[in-house]
Structures are given as C-alpha cells and as structure tokens.
C-alpha cells in the first residue's frame, strides 16, 4: 500500500473533521440537531465552483465569498426553523439539504448531473509549487501531500478558533442554552441569536469542508452532498465524543481508517458488497455506541443534553 493511499484517507478524514467541527458546535455545545450540514457544504462548494467557472473569479476570492453565502444560507434556514422543537428542527434542516441537492440536480445554472468542473487550476498550480518546496526537504513523492497538509492545517486553525470561542463567555452561554434554554433566556440572553450564531459558524465550517472536498475530487456533483454525508458526520461525532472538539479529529481518523482499512482484509466479497459492508458497520457502530456509551468514545456524559 502506498503512502499516497493513506494520505488520501487522511485528506478525507480531514474534510470530515472540518465538517464535523460544525456539527460539534451545534450538537455538542448548543444542543441543536442539525441534519442539514451536507446542504451547507453543497452551497459552499457550488458557490465557489460557480464563482470561478461562471463568473471568472480567482479561487482565492471565491472561497471567502462562498463562506459568506453559506453563512447567509445558515441564517436564512435558522431564522424560521430555530423556533421549532428540536425534532422538527431536525426534519426542517434535512428537508433544506434535500432541496439544495435537488436544485443542484435539476436547475440549469448548477450544471445538473454533469456537475461543475474546471475550478481548480489555481489550486493545482499552488499544489505543484508546494510539492517542489517539499522536494527540497525530501518529501516530494506523494501527490496528495499538499492537500493533506493544507486540510489538516486548516483543521488545526478551526479547532484553535473554536476552542478559544468555547472558553469565552460566548461559549459558556451556548452551553447554558444546551443545558436549559429557559434559564438562559431568564438571564437575559437572546437564545435565538446565540443559536443562529452557532448555526452560522457550522455553515461556514461546512463550506470550508466543501472547498477541500471540491479540490480533492476535482468535480462537483449533486450526489456528493446527499444526507449520507451528514449521517457519516454523526458517526464521526459519536466516535470522537460529544462536546469535545479534539475528539472530532480522533473520531474522523478512526472512522476512515476502519472504512478504508477494510479492503486490506481480503474478504471474499465483490467491491459492491464491500462498500455495503462498510455502511452496515457504520450503522452498527452508531447503534451500539449510542446504546452502550452515548457520550461517545471520548466524550463526557455530563455534557450530553438535547431537547
């Protein structure tokens, strides 16, 4: 097995890591059951792709603009739906994500089933420059290395930012809302505003994860953003543990090592069956962990509240 293969797994784990950091701030720290994360990711990735290919923007300008668009989508979705009960909020967000995917598939502007391609030239130039620099220190051989480094660097930055926010008074209010919304409101906190901010941050993180997904697969296609992505995100969340940002990295690496490592067991199965088996395994992990160790492998039980 080549190093490039495991670097590829590492890139996937990093993309999921950034994606799940957003779920963590919603689920683990605010108590919001956000099932629309794949929709925000799709909006971010498609916005970037279309700004580059249709509007001729530089990818470096398109990225922050796409983050803003995803944040706007988060606010737009959150403003009406955050007033709903938690299970209704969950349904509303997954419906939103499906509408987004349906739109990408059917609307003329999004390229339909052909998807979007050809937005990553500037990134590839940068990546080959990075590869040349890495060659100087003897790390030049692996083509996936630049993306791997950038993804995990970005994960680290997001992690540090979130940890800083969590330690701030703002983060304490979020947790107060998770524990008892009415008590937080009674203390004069604008609960809806805090929840909106939490959802907006999650949407921004989803958009960033979407950029790296787009750079990794080199084309955008509606089915990349189906709800399964969000559900796998929840599997990462359970593995890493609730209310722990650091746990997200461990959960993501663990999940993807197991998922991709399965192929080295040389089971007497077809490729399709192996693919199915991976998802059965994830399903079983979700069921067993939630029943036996609901706080996740590394989470703390005291930090699990959701209404």
């Amino acid at each position, binding site marked *: 097995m080549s190093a490039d293969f495991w670097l590829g797994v590492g890139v996937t784990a990093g993309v999921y890591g950034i994606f799940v950091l957003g779920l963590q701030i919603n*689920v683990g720290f605010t108590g919001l*059951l956000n099932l629309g994360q794949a929709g925000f990711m799709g909006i971010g990735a498609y916005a970037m792709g279309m700004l580059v290919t249709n509007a001729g923007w530089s990818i470096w300008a398109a990225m922050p603009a796409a983050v803003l668009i995803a944040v706007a989508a988060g606010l737009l979705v959150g403003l*009406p*739906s955050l007033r*709903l*009960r*938690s*299970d*209704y909020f*969950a*349904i*509303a967000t*997954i*419906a*939103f994500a*499906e*509408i987004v995917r*349906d*739109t990408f*598939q*059917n609307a003329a502007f999004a390229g339909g089933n052909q998807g979007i391609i050809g937005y990553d030239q500037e990134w590839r130039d940068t990546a080959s420059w990075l590869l040349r620099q890495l060659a100087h220190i003897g790390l030049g051989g692996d083509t996936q290395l630049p993306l791997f480094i950038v993804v995990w660097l970005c994960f680290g930055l997001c992690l540090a930012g979130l940890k800083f926010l969590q330690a701030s008074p703002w983060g304490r209010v979020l947790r107060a809302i998770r524990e008892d919304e009415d008590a937080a409101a009674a203390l004069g906190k604008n609960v809806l505003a805090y929840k909106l901010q939490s959802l907006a941050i999650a949407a921004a993180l989803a958009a960033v994860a979407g950029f790296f997904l787009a750079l990794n697969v080199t084309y955008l296609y509606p089915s990349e953003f189906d709800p399964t992505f969000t*559900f796998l995100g*929840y*599997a990462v969340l*359970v593995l890493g543990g609730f209310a722990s940002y650091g746990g997200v990295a461990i959960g993501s690496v663990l999940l993807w090592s197991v998922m991709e490592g399965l192929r080295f067991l040389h089971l007497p199965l077809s490729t*399709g*069956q192996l*693919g*199915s*088996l*991976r*998802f*059965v395994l*994830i*399903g*079983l*992990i*979700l*069921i067993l*962990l*939630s*029943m036996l160790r*609901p706080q996740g492998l590394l989470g703390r039980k005291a930090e*699990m*509240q*959701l*209404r």
Partner: protein
Amino acid sequence: MRRSDSSLGRGGDAPPFASALWRRTPPIAWLAIALVLIGLMLTAVVGPTAAGQATLNGLVGAGYFALGAVGLTLVYGVLRLVNFAHGDMLTFGTYVTLGVTALGVPFWPSAAVGMIVTALLAILLDRVIWEPMRRARTSTLQLFLVATGLALVLRYSVQFFAGSQVRTVGLDTTSSLNFGPWHLGTLQLDVMLVGLATILLTGAGLRYTRLGKEMRAVADNIALAEVTGIDTRRTIRATWLVAGGLAALAGILYAASIGTINPNFGFTILLSLFAAAVLGGIGNAYGALAGGVVIGLSQEWSTLFFNTRWKPAIGFAILILTLLLMPRGIFGRKKARL
C-alpha cells in the same frame, strides 16, 4: 347537530348558526372540500383531460404515501421520535417480496409474505433496541442516532445481498386501461385500489376497534394511556406490527406503480412520508392518512406546471411550509411544547 341544539337551548348566548357549523365540521371535511376546489380550479386552468389525468396519477401515489406515513406517525407516539429507519422498512419489505417472487410465487401472495416478515422484524427491533431504550429514558439525540444507524444497517444489508443496481419488479407494466380521455396502467389501477382500500380499512380499524383506539391513545400520550388501564406493552407491539406491515405494503405499492426500484428508494421517499405525517399533525393517524393523500395529489398536480423532475421537491416544500406556518399540522390539537 341535535346535541348542539340542546346546548343552545340551555345556554343564553347562542352562537350564530354559521360559526357553530364552522366548529362542528371536522377538519377532514374542510380538507376534502379544499382538495376538490383545487381540483376544479386546475380543471378550469389546464382543462379536464390534463387535470383528471394528474388527479388519477396522484391517487396512485396517495396510497403508498398514506400507508407509509401512518406507520411513521403511530411509531412517533411510541418513540417520541420520527423514525429515520422507517423508509428503509419500505425497502426491506419490498426486497423480501421480490425475493419470494424469485422463487416462483405470484406477486401479491409474495407481498403478503413481505408484509408479515417486515412486521415481525419491526417487533424484533422493538424488543432488542427500542424497548430497552424506552426503559432507560434516553435522549432525543440517542434515539436519533440509533434510528440513523438502524437505517444504514437495513439499507446496506439489503444492498449487500441484492446489489445496488436498479431492479425491475417483474410485472406486466405495459397494459393499460382507458376511461374516456384518461388512461391508467392496469398495475397502477391495482395499486390505487389496494392503496385506497387499505387506507379506509386502516382508518376504520383505528376508529372502531378496541386495539385501534388503544393505539391512537398510546400515540397521543403514552403516560395517559397507561393510566387509563391500557396494556401499553401489548399495544406498542401491535403498533410496530401494523407500522411494519403497512410500511412493507407502501414500499410494494411504490415498486409496483413505478416498476423499478433500488435499495435507496425507501430513504428517498422518507421525507415525503415525513411531510405527510407532519402535515396531518404528527402523532395523529387519520392526519397521516389524509396527509399522504395530499402529498400524492400535490406532487402529481405540480407536474401540470413544473417539470416532473421537481416532483420530490414539492413534498419538501410542503414539509417546510407546514413546519413554518402550522407545525401542529392540519389535524393537530393545540397543546404545550413537548
């Protein structure tokens, strides 16, 4: 009417007749009137041929949406969660049915086997997973995660054994009948008749049988049902039995009316089932049946104006609008936040 008359006689401030009528008319009658009015308006706009055809097609879909949604809404009462694995019960039942037909058994008897096996699976899952979780009073988050995990296990187990490719149901999908300017596939007619008959049967069973009343009571408020002396354990098991069997039937009807399926189809229509259940007021079984009819009709009516590709999006749009404008649904009662 007689009872209201006598109360009018005793009370001094008699409400005007019109408002009494307004309050006495059940919501389902208003819904029926609204649907007929929309149907007439469509007839005026696009002509009777197109409107009638879309309505016929819509009634075919009404069957599987209603039967899928009624199980979802009854189970909501047991779990206090919209069951994300419900769509994959449709898939499971349909693939069991196809597996039995592959042995040479005719389609509809195989469908009966599929329904029974799915109902038994639903009871088994309650024993192994949901009952322990109910006893442990687990959080919404845990229930959601387990339901999601179960959905993945069911869907990909089916895919593991049956493959992910699109399968034909193996029925004659070409023969069709003409009713004046309208036409309908023979199979679609079967689906429509079986679907509508089962809706009526389910509605009557919930309304008039003791078990049906107990199931509605449990779905509405499990603690209150227990206090009134209902054997909730038995009722919950019966609820899973009905929900599982109807889910399988819904999947089978879907497969028969479309002609081809893949292992993702149950999950794909799950959101439309959510839409039907929420539209009818979640936890309200009649509401889910009526909601399913509304979803079936509106998806087909939408094709009169939009490309067919947008059909599923109509279900999502109805879901979101219902959640935002009247989260208790058409039939939901006013009650405190749960």
